[in-house]
């Protein structure tokens, strides 16, 4: 995501049909002038907007970045109101949060965009705002959005001060060489301490105290000041309409009627309906069917053609889900997909997420936007192995392989070392929780890298974590032991050598392929015990004793025993209740066909699902 620079970017909406049937040939660029290309409508009065009134020097592209709940979406609402982009009402809450999941959870998941029109000192400006997600899991969206900007508003809560994600976001913007405008929000709160927060900003980010703008987004205090600073401090994009078209697709969605819609930032040239364009990545050709801007909802210039049946909805659930996944990943390119199949769960996909919230949100979007539901298994992380066996290296064509499925875990005799993904985690916490947090981090095999008091009471800790130790419940644990005060963010820190082993789960001595796990040696015992206990609760008692064991190679490290039935017969059976009784027996007989036999043990299909599934929140 390093393609920022100072470029023009304004928002056009591109209808993206299937590859055009036109004969293939070199792409044709149409270097027409800006004024000739599109007609735009504002959201309020549907008047034509003359884009030629906005030369590059009166355009600003910016983002708002902040820790979760520091008021980013509220500030966006105020900016939209003050520029007349949306009507001012009490109901403007999270206007840019279009997804149902965002409104329900009060978070921003997808970066959304809006174009604002603002007159400052007699000049009309076009201010393009991209709202960004606040949660650590969605920093991918943040960086993708930032690559289309020249500056950011860094919002910090005047009460909570700098949090883990404030730090992470600051560095994202800093490394992208963007202009950074610090904004101290929520100054209306009783416990607000903007001075302390400004000092933190100075200490950590080296931004002079007097550059901070104190606002209350909720009450609308000082919002004009923010707009003025945006115009003054953020440079206009560099842009030449006579260049060939060069654009970045920073977001894309699937519309049931209209097909694929890409949100793009233009770095050079121009685009209009009818243009034939080529994706530099895939080398596929597309025809532009429609162009528009986001204010904040798309404003079409022409009536759209219906594109029903572009993705025919198949009858089987598998295909439904497949198509839902395809559409949703179009809109969330941070999700990686591998087809996979498991004996227990059938055909499915192994999806790569950025974090747990990301996974939950993705699942919720699948349900809400595509009416599909899926089984979520416990998350795993991709491990690597450095091969030492010449034969294997030849077989894989590489000395380093990625292991996604435990079944492919190579034996340690043919491996020089195993590697696990790690992250550099940032924790910001009031000092009274430090001791507990250090214990928690040690328990998660984390190595401390830095500890810094950002003021008299707050500490920033940096730890190198194995990814698999934080992927499930670290965040919840941190929040609960700090009464919610500690914040957490992380960034990729590459792979590190680790003492990894493959743990098998056996039922009466027979290994269950789908429950095999790659795990750190130190955690094997506890995890093995946990899995055995959980299996014991999900397998029904049978006519003989069942041993459920966790094993590393030939060594058994945990065992649970499911005792045999000693009595299972209904007490009263006379003339009266035979029909009901027979129905039950026949259902059980039918159910036997759905059981999976492991050795002579019958295991219900959903036993594995229940074991593999994430634990419900306590």
């Amino acid at each position, binding site marked *: 995501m390093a393609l920022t620079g100072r470029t023009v970017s304004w928002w056009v909406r591109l209808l993206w049909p299937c590859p055009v049937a036109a004969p293939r040939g070199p792409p044709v660029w149409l270097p027409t002038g800006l004024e000739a290309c599109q007609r735009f409508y504002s959201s309020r009065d549907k008047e034509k907007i003359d884009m030629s009134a906005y030369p590059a020097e009166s355009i600003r592209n910016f983002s708002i970045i902040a820790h979760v709940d520091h008021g980013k979406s509220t500030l966006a609402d105020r900016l939209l109101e003050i520029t007349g982009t949306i009507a001012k009402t009490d109901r403007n809450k999270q206007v840019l949060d279009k997804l149902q999941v965002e409104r329900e959870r009060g978070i921003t998941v997808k970066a959304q965009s809006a174009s604002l029109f603002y007159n400052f000192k007699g000049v009309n400006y076009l201010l393009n705002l991209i709202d960004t997600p606040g949660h650590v899991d969605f920093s991918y969206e943040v960086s993708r959005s930032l690559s289309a900007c020249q500056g950011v508003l860094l919002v910090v809560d005047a009460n909570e001060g700098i949090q883990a994600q404030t730090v992470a976001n600051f560095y994202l913007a800093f490394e992208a060489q963007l202009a950074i405008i610090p904004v101290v929000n929520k100054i209306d709160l009783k416990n607000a301490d903007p001075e302390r927060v400004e000092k933190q900003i100075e200490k950590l980010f080296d931004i002079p105290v007097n550059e901070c703008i104190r606002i209350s987004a909720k009450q609308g205090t000082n919002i004009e000041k923010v707009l003025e600073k945006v115009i003054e401090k953020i440079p206009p994009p560099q842009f030449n309409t006579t260049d060939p078209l060069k654009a970045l697709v920073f977001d894309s969605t699937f519309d049931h009627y209209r097909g694929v819609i890409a949100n793009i930032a233009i770095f050079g040239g121009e685009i209009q309906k009818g243009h034939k364009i080529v994706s530099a990545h895939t080398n596929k050709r597309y025809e532009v069917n429609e162009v528009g801007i986001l204010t904040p909802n798309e404003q079409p210039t022409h009536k759209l053609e219906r594109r029903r049946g572009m993705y025919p909805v198949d009858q089987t659930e598998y295909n439904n889900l497949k198509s839902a996944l395809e559409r949703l990943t179009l809109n969330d390119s941070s999700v990686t997909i591998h087809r996979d199949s498991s004996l227990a769960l059938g055909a499915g996909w192994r999806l790569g997420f950025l974090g747990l919230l990301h996974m939950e949100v993705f699942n919720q979007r699948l349900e809400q936007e595509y009416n599909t539901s899926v089984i979520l298994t416990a998350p795993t992380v991709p491990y690597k192995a450095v091969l030492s066996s010449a034969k294997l290296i030849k077989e894989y064509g590489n000395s380093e392989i990625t292991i996604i499925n435990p079944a492919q875990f190579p034996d340690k005799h043919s491996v020089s070392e195993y590697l696990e993904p790690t992250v550099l985690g940032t924790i910001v916490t009031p000092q009274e929780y430090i001791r507990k947090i250090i214990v928690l981090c040690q328990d998660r095999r984390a190595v401390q890298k830095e500890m810094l008091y950002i003021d008299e009471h707050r500490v920033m800790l940096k730890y190198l974590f194995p990814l698999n130790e934080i992927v499930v419940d670290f965040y919840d644990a941190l929040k609960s032991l700090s009464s919610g005060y500690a914040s957490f963010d992380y960034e990729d820190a590459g792979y590190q050598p680790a003492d990894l082993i493959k743990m098998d789960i056996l039922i009466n001595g027979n290994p269950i392929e789908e429950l095999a796990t790659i795990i750190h040696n130190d955690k094997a015992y506890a995890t093995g015990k946990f899995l055995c206990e959980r299996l014991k609760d999900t397998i029904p008692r*049978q006519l003989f004793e069942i041993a459920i064991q966790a094993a590393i190679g030939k060594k058994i490290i945990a065992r649970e025993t499911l005792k045999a039935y000693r*009595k299972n*017969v209904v*007490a*009263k*059976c006379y*003339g009266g209740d035979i*029909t009901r009784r027979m129905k039950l027996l026949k259902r*059980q*007989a039918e159910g036997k066909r759905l059981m999976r036999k492991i050795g002579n043990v019958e295991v219900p299909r959903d036993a594995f699902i229940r074991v593999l599934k994430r634990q419900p929140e306590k």
Partner: protein
Amino acid sequence: MAVRGLRAALGAMAVRGLRAALGAVRPRGTGCAAGLRSASKPSEPGPEPAGPVTAALYVHWPYCRKHCSYCSFNKYVVPAVDEAAVRACLVRETQTLLRLGHVQSVTSVFFGGGTPSLAAPHTIAAVLEAAAEVAHLPAGAEVTLEANPSSADPARLAGFRAAGVNRLSLGVQSLDDAELRLLGREHTAAEARAAAEAARKLFPGRVSLDLIFGLPGQSREAWARGLEAALGLCDDHLALYQLTLERGTALEAQVRRGVLPEPPEDLLADLYLSARATLAAAGFHQYEVSNFARKGARSTHNLSYWRAEQYVGVGPGAHGRFVPWGEGGRLREARVQTPHPDTWMREVRSCGHGTRRRAALSPLELLQEVLALGLRTDEGVTQQRWGLFSPRLSLEAAFGASGEARELQERGWLRLNGRALRCTPAGLPLLDSLLPALLCQLRRRWNAVEEEDGGGRGSR
């Protein structure tokens, strides 16, 4: 004789196939006659039963004085029972249904409930007389009445004996006052003893005591004591029921909410197995999962259920299993009478009976019942009985050779020999875990035989 009747019924099945095997719900109101004919076409007279038709008769008395905390039966606690009206309806329905089944001989009668000992002896007499009017009721036929110790004083019991009752099933349940209170019984242990003694005087050798075990909090010792006390009191028949926590009962709700502890499975097994040993030592023979008898005092009526013989159910909510020859039926039907007494009475008055649901049993369904019920008994499913219901798929063909039954035999839970297929004493307590596998195997083999026949039988 029952045997010949069944053979004829099965012969008819072979001709009519599965056409009538679909269940029919009888419309309410006045359409009873039409509804009753819906399962078969009277215009196509089929063969009549080849020999005399026999059936057991079950009569349901739906009223109780009090709800017991564990009971989910079809029973009603009402301020006053219009007994004359109920009696008239029981009499009328008995005659209608016995006629409908072309029943020539009633093999046994059982008055259950509810609390049938609350009925007047002359109500019992009226039903027996009504049965004897339309069918033969042999003098020695077993006539059992379920009695509650709180309505079993000597005078009352004598009245029942005079009415024709010759066997008493006494709902003692426990001989411990605290346990009786937990069960919501309205009698004390002392009253139970008095009732048992009175009953034995009037029905010597023909009294059965019911006991419940596996009560929340019941220890092994408490059950052993209770069983010893019962052995000192009982006659030649005992029924021991593990408490079933039925949904909708007060006891089940208390256990579900954690007010009372749920007895652990291992403890329940211990209680059952130790009771079996105790009773065996006292000379009792276990002839069914929950029934024990000495000196041959088995209940013929209950045995007829487990042997899958015909029975006619009379009274609110009563179940029946018989071929309705009287309206052209050729397949045995599972029949249920209307549960609510007032509605049932209205229906009996207007139609002669209050049958609410009837479903014809397919030959395979009937065979599944034969298997599931028969395996509950010590005699098991005999070759002879199986042959009556399954002339073309023998017991060996269904359960011999390799398969589920063979595996269960090898584990020592099942036995198949020239006489019968039955559970071993070790297998009987596990029957409900054995049956699904056996039913799977039966269905598979049955379908294989059907396919050999070309599958054309049902469409003819």
